[in-house]
C-alpha cells in the first residue's frame, strides 16, 4: 500500500490538487445550473431539472465515497458499514422534513406524521421533539452518527480489532440498524421510511430553483469536505494516519497512540457520510431502512476501489463513474447491471488494484519518465514485499 503514497509523492500533479478539484467542480456545477435556469427549455443546451437532481445525488454519493476513502484509502480501515452513518444523517434530515409537512399530510394531523397517525400513536416520541427546528435537526443529523462512530470506533480500536474482523463488525452494525429501522415500533416509519416531503426552510422542494440551490449547496459542501480532508491528510495527523496504515505496530512503538488517531479519523469520516446523507434526502425525496442494507455499504467501497483509493479525487471519480453507469445500464437492461456490477468487483480487484486513477498515473508516469521507471519498479517490488508481510501478520493476529 505504501507504493501508492510513493507514487503520489513522486508524480504529484503540478497544480495544487485541492484548488484544481474545486475549480473543476464549481465550473461544472455553475454550467449545469445556468443551463437549467437561464437556457430556455426547448434549447439543446438546456439541462432538465431531473438531470440536476440526478447530478446532486451523484455528488452526495461522491461525498460518501470520499468518507469511505478517508478511512480505507488512508488508514486501511475497510468499513462495510458507512451506509449506516449516511442513512442516520439522512434520517435526521428526513425527520425535519417530515415535521415541515405539518397538516398537509393525508391524515391532516398538524402534530404527527402520517405513519404515526396510521399506527394510532397519541403523541410524538421524545426523540422527535425539536426536530421541527432546522438547526437542531441538523445538529442531531451530525451528532448521532458521530457519536455512534465514536463509541463503535473507541470500542473497536481500543481492543485492536483490525482488518477483516473490523469489516465484518461494521457490516453487522449496519445490518442490526437496518433490522431495527424496519420495525414500526422504532417510530421512523418502518418499512416505508420517511417520504412525501413538501418543503425545506419554507422553499418548495419541487421547485426548480430549490433543486438547483440544493445541487449547488451539495457541490459547495463536497468542495469543503474535499479541502478539509486534503488539509487533514497533509497535516501532521495525516502523516501519522498514513504511518498507521503502513505499519501500525511500528508507529505504536514510535510512541503514537494509534487508536486515538483511528477513532478521530473514523468519527470525521462518519460526519462526512452523515452530511452526504442529509443532503441526499431532500433531493431524492425519501429515506427508508433499505439505505442501511449491507449491500449499499459494500457498493460504496467498490466505487472507491474503482476510482482509486488513497486519492480523494479518485473516490469522487469512481463514485461518479459507477453511478452514471448504473443509471444508464439499469434503464437499458436492469438484469445486466447486476452482472456488470459483480464483474466490476472482480475485475477491479484483480486487474486494477490501484483503481482508475492509479492506472492513469502509472501510464502517465511511464510515458513521461521512462528512465525513472526501473527504479520505481524496484521500489514497488520492495513495497509489495513489505505489504505482504504486513498482511500476513495481520491475518495471523
Amino acid at each position, binding site marked *: 500500500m505504501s507504493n501508492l503514497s510513493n507514487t503520489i509523492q513522486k508524480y504529484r500533479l503540478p497544480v495544487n490538487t485541492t484548488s484544481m478539484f474545486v475549480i473543476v467542480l464549481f465550473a461544472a456545477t455553475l454550467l449545469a445550473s445556468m443551463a437549467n435556469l437561464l437556457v430556455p427549455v426547448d434549447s439543446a443546451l438546456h439541462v432538465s431539472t431531473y438531470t440536476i437532481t440526478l447530478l446532486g445525488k451523484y455528488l452526495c454519493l461522491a461525498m460518501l465515497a470520499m468518507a469511505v476513502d478517508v478511512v480505507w484509502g488512508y488508514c486501511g480501515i475497510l468499513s462495510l458499514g458507512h451506509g449506516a452513518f449516511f442513512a442516520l444523517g439522512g434520517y435526521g434530515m428526513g425527520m425535519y422534513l417530515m415535521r415541515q409537512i405539518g397538516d398537509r399530510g393525508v391524515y391532516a394531523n398538524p402534530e404527527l406524521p402520517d405513519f404515526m397517525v396510521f399506527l394510532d400513536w397519541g403523541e410524538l416520541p421524545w426523540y422527535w421533539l425539536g426536530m421541527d427546528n432546522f438547526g437542531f435537526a441538523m445538529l442531531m443529523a451530525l451528532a448521532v452518527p458521530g457519536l455512534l462512530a465514536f463509541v463503535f470506533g473507541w470500542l473497536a480500536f481500543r481492543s485492536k480489532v483490525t482488518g477483516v*474482523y473490523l469489516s465484518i463488525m461494521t457490516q453487522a452494525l449496519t445490518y442490526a440498524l437496518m433490522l431495527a429501522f424496519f420495525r414500526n415500533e422504532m417510530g421512523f416509519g418502518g418499512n416505508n421510511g420517511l417520504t412525501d416531503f413538501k418543503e425545506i426552510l419554507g422553499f418548495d422542494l419541487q421547485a426548480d430553483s430549490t433543486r438547483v440551490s440544493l445541487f449547488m449547496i451539495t457541490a459547495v459542501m463536497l468542495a469543503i469536505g474535499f479541502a478539509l480532508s486534503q488539509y487533514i491528510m497533509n497535516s501532521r495527523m495525516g502523516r501519522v494516519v498514513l504511518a498507521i496504515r503502513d505499519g501500525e505496530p511500528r508507529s505504536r512503538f514510535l510512541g503514537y497512540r494509534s487508536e486515538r488517531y483511528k477513532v478521530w479519523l473514523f468519527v470525521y469520516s462518519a460526519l462526512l457520510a452523515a452530511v452526504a446523507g442529509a443532503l441526499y434526502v431532500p433531493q431524492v425525496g425519501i429515506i427508508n431502512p433499505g439505505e442501511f442494507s449491507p449491500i449499499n455499504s459494500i457498493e460504496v467501497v467498490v466505487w472507491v476501489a474503482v476510482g482509486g483509493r488513497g486519492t480523494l479525487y479518485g473516490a469522487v471519480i469512481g463514485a461518479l463513474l459507477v453511478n452514471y453507469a448504473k443509471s444508464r445500464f439499469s434503464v437499458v437492461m436492469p438484469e445486466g447491471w447486476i*452482472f456488470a456490477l459483480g464483474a466490476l468487483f472482480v475485475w477491479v*480487484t*484483480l486487474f486494477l488494484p490501484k483503481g482508475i486513477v492509479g492506472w492513469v498515473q502509472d501510464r502517465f508516469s511511464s510515458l513521461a519518465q521512462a528512465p525513472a521507471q526501473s527504479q520505481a519498479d524496484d521500489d514497488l517490488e520492495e513495497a509489495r514485499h513489505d505489504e505482504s508481510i504486513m498482511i500476513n501478520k495481520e491475518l495471523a493476529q
Partner: protein
Amino acid sequence: MKQIMAASCLLLLLLSSGGVIANPASVPSQLTQPSQTILAQSEPQTVQSSTGNSEKGRFAELLQQLTKAKLSKVVKVLEQLEATGDTLVRPLFQILLDGALYYQRDNLRLLAVDKQGDGRLLASDLLSGAALGSVPKKTIKKIRVNNRLRVYLRGALSRLALTDADVAVREAAVLSMLNKLSPANVETLETAATTEADEGVQVLLKLALAMNTLSESSLRNERLAAIAVMQGRLESSVRNQLQALVDNTGEGDLVVKTAAEKALKTIDGKVTAFGYLEQLFFGLSLGSVLLLAAIGLAITFGVMGVINMAHGEMIMIGAYATFVVQQLMPNFLEYSIWVAIPAAFLTAGLVGVLIERCVIRHLHGRPLETLLATFGISLILQQAVRTIFSPLNQTVVTPEWMSGSMEINAVLSVTYSRIYIFIFALIVFAALQLIIKKTSLGLNVRAVSQNRNMAKSMGIRTDRVDALTFGLGSGIAGIAGVALSQITNVGPNLGQAYIIDSFMVVVFGGVGNLLGTLFAGFSLGIANKFLEPATGAVLANIIVLVFIILFMQKKPKGLFPQKGRAAE
C-alpha cells in the same frame, strides 16, 4: 482430484450410514396411523366384517330397514345396528351424521355421496366401498336425520370409538370427550372404564371421571381425590376446570378450593417447564441451522483465512440443486433427498473450486480485496439464479417422512423436519471433523493453514490443497442448502439471509476452531430463542448482534482462540 473424491466419498458414506440410523421411515408411519384412521371415518370403508354369516345377514337386513323406516323409528334401527357390533357401523354412523347417506330408489342400495362443488354427486357403495362415479340426482334419495338423531349418532360414535380395537382411537376419543362431559358421555366412559385394558387409556378414563366427580359431586373427600387425580395433568380442559373452580366465588368448600389452587400451581409449573423445554428445542433447532450455515465458512474462513462473501450463495446453490433434483425425479420425491445431498455437494464444491482457481488464488494475502471480489461473485451468482430460474421463490417438496410433528404431551410437540435437521447438522459436523483430523487431505489442510511456506517445502502442493479445501467448504455449504431448503423459502436471496449470521457464528466461536463453531452456533441459537418471548424476533436478533459486537471488543479472537504456534 483423487483427494476430493475420497473426501466426498467418505462424507457420503458417513451421511448414508448416519441416515440409516436415523432413518425415520418406519417411525412416522406408526405415529401417523391414528390420523389416518380418524380420516377414514368419513370415508366409505372397504373393511370386511369379521362377524359370522348370520350376523352379516342381520346387519344387511337392518340396513334395508333403514331405507324404509320413518324418521321417528330410525333411532330403533340404529340402536339395533349398534348392537350388532359390526365394523361398518362406525363409518355408517359418521356418514349419516354428515348427511351423506343416500340409497338408490330402484334397488335400495346404500350409497355414500360426496357433493362436488359443481353440483355433481359422486357416489360410492357403502358396503363394498366401490366408487360408482357421478349419479343423477333423481335416482337416489337421502336418508334424513333430525337433531334427535344427531344427538344419538354423536353419542353412539363416541361409544363406538371407546370400544374400538385401536388404542390410539380410544385415546383420541377420551381426549375429545374431556371438553364435553355430559351425563350421557360420563355413563359411556364409566362402562368403558370397566373393560379398558390399555393402561394409558385407563388413566385418561380415570381422569375424565375425576373431572366429572369434581364438578358434580358434593362430597369433600371425593372431590379432593378427584383433584389428586387431576394434579399434574397438562390437558387444557383440566387446567380450565381447575381455574374456573378457583375463580368461582360461589364455591363454598375452602379445602377443595385450596387443593385446586395447589393443583393449578403444579400444572402451571409443569407448563412453564415444558415451555422452557420447547424454547430450548427451538433454540437447538435454530442453532443447528446456524451451525449448518456456518460450518462451511468455518473451513473457508476459519481454516483457510479466505473471506468468502459468496458463501451464502453456495448455500443457495445447494438449495437449488435440491429443487432441480426434485424436478428431475418427480415420482421419487421421498428419496430425492438422498440424491440431492451428493448433487448439492458436488455442484457447490465445483463452483467453489472454480472460484478459488479463477479469482481467490490471485488475491492471496490480500483479505480485503478477497472480500470485495467474492462479494462481486455473490452478486453474479444471485443474478444468474434469477435469470435461469426466476426471481420468485421455488417450491421444494418436503418428503412425507419429514413432515408432521411428534407430540410428546399436551403442551409440547416438536416437528420432525427440525429434529432431522438437528441430527443432520451434527452428522455433517462429525464428518467434517473426521475429514480434518483423520484424512491426508485434512492433514495437508492443517499444515498449509499453519505454515504455508514450511508445508510447501515439505512437498505439499499448496495451491491444490487450497482449491480442494475451498471446494470442501463450499460443498458443505451446499449440503447445508439441502437442509435449509426444507425449512425456508428457496429463492435468490436465500444466501443473503445467512451470510452475516454465519460470519458471526464463526467469529464468535473462534476462527480456525470447528468445535468453537459448534458451540457458538448452538449458544447463539438458544440465546436468540430465549430472548424472543420477551422482545420479539427482530429485536432478539438485534440484541444478539450487538452482544457479539461488544463481545468482540473484549475477546477479538472469539470464544476459543487458537493457541500455540498455530496462532502465530
